[in-house]
């Protein structure tokens, strides 16, 4: 609709009547609101991100490269990637299973499961880390047995993976459940009545119907998995080159007044955030289309 047609209406024998959509504020107000939002974003988001990159490259490219390829930093990057590579697929499977169960059939305790999925959102990450120490630490019930078997969970990679999975498990499920509930069971019933097996229904109908939402959830899950600090900090033990993830490594460097190196590693995390943001926007644009198509049905 053209702007002109929207704002003016011509009546026979009358001059053009200015008409402003009733929910649209006066120009002054509009400009003020936009400026306030922009100023806020600039101050709290854009400036810090820019500052991270400026600080990271203050010493020039060689110093930046040295900070990143230095063995402890490289180990932290590798560990972060490893943790994400384990926890994201776990949450992908869990999220799909849980949302499939919640959206597509009825069972006792369904609403309880639905509520429990949100638990990591409401629990402080530090508590999440402590839970694993209480479960698997040397003072715990399982501690002596784990020790005799030679399995180290706490202050080792398994603990970090567990804490990360806990903190990130709602992301995929939370994206899928509303979409799957909205789509209902009709497509699955149609596929079954046409003779498809359970596997065929899942891979040919259910999964394609949610693929963009799934990708979106995985992306958010991954960003959080790589950036998680609190829960991981509790279970990691901060052993350099062994149990330090990128966020922990940044903190250590910073506490040692090694600002250039701290910002260099931090800039990688910021880059991840920017990348996530871009892909997320692209997906939202794609995914909004799919949602709209769903609504049109």
């Amino acid at each position, binding site marked *: 609709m053209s702007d002109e047609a929207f704002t003016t209406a011509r009546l026979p024998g009358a001059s053009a009547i200015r008409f402003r959509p009733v929910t649209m504020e006066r120009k002054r107000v509009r400009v003020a609101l936009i400026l306030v939002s922009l100023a806020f974003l600039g101050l709290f988001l854009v400036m810090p991100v820019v500052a991270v990159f400026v600080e990271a490259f203050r010493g020039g490219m060689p110093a930046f490269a040295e900070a990143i390829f230095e063995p402890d930093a490289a180990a932290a990057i590798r560990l972060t990637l490893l943790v994400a590579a384990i926890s994201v697929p776990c949450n992908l499977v869990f999220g799909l299973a849980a949302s499939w169960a919640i959206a597509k059939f009825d069972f006792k305790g369904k609403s309880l499961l639905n509520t429990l999925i949100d638990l990591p959102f409401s629990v402080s990450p530090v508590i999440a880390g402590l839970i694993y120490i209480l479960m698997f630490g040397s003072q715990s019930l399982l501690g002596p047995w784990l020790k005799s078997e030679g399995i180290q969970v706490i202050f080792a990679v398994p603990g970090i993976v567990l804490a990360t999975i806990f903190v990130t498990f709602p992301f995929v499920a939370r994206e899928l459940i509303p979409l799957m509930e909205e789509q209902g069971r*009709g*497509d699955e*019933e*149609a*596929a*079954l*009545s*046409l*003779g*498809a*097996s359970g596997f*065929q229904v899942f891979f*040919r*109908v259910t999964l*394609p*119907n949610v693929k963009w939402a799934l990708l979106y959830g995985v992306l958010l899950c991954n960003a959080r998995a790589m950036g998680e600090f609190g829960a991981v900090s509790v279970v990691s033990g901060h052993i350099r080159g062994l149990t330090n993830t990128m966020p922990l490594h940044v903190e250590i460097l910073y506490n040692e007044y090694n600002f250039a190196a701290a910002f260099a590693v931090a800039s990688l995390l910021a880059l991840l955030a920017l990348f996530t943001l871009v892909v997320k926007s692209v997906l939202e644009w794609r995914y909004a289309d*799919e949602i709209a*198509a*769903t609504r*049109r*049905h």
Partner: protein
Amino acid sequence: MNAITPIDKGASVALGAPIDVTIENVQKAFGDTPALHGVSLDVKAGELVALLGPSGSGKTTLLRILAGLDAPTAGRVLFGGDDALGLSVQDRNVGFVFQHYALFRHMTVFQNIAFGLTVRPRGERPPKAEIRKRVLHLLDLVQLTGLDKRYPSQLSGGQRQRVALARALAIEPRVLLLDEPFGALDAQVRKDLRRWLREIHDQTGHTTFFVTHDQEEALELADRVVVMSKGRIEQVGTPDEIYDAPASPFVFEFIGESSFLPVTVLDGAVQLDGRPLDLSGLGAPSGTATLGFRPHDVSIVEDGSPAITGTIVTERRHGGARRLELEVGADKHRVEIDMPVDHSRLAGNQIAFRPHRWRIFPR
């Protein structure tokens, strides 16, 4: 949407012979809530049967039980004399068409229609060329030739429902089940599709059940109409039987327009407020009863012979007639009667009439 043209009589769809469907005392409860109380029905091969009723009457539940999407609590369903309840939904080989189409949105029209064939195990799956031939033929049948590469979101509602029907027909179903197939479409498209569905049925000859709450649709389309209410079958009959000889006040009220008056039957004659009406009791036993008649089945009485007298409350235009709303008797029962358009009486006036077709339902 394209205008719907008559189907090419030369076209044919490969089919097994149509089968009888027998429903024996089927009961269904969802938790403690009963949805069907012992429904029995015999449907002959090739019949087109409408399951008609208001929402909550159990018609959709019955259809889903036939499809295998729901299981009955008790009872038997026979397809061609063989037990069908033991078969899974996949093995039952029924074509099911949903009210909201349930087309696979990420597949083209072609892929949608071919779906039932492509999911078959390798040994039973027709070769690609054969699938293609069959899909294109079905597209011709549902008059969507050339739209095979479209996605469902690029089609109108009527076109989507035709794709859904083609998809259901592709698996050569033994029974065709349609759940309010035209419920989501607007009135004109509905009428076109109705006629078109009848033609498809006459051509393919499937034993077909369709669920509807639209009595006009049921009467126009079906060979037999099954009127349901509160999980029970109220009446089964041809459209003429259902319309002209409704078995209960419910059917009378649900099908077509109706007016009711409480009356008494005395020695085979109808009395209203103690005065004879000169209407036969139609074999009803003496006692209280309900008189039912259609608004258009009445004649004005002006010679003072026995009649129903009422006070005109309102009048309004109703299609080709003028409809009067009357208050009758001491209890001021509201009834409606139709008069010719040129007939003009003012509100507040008295009018006397007698139905020339009526039903008596003992109470």
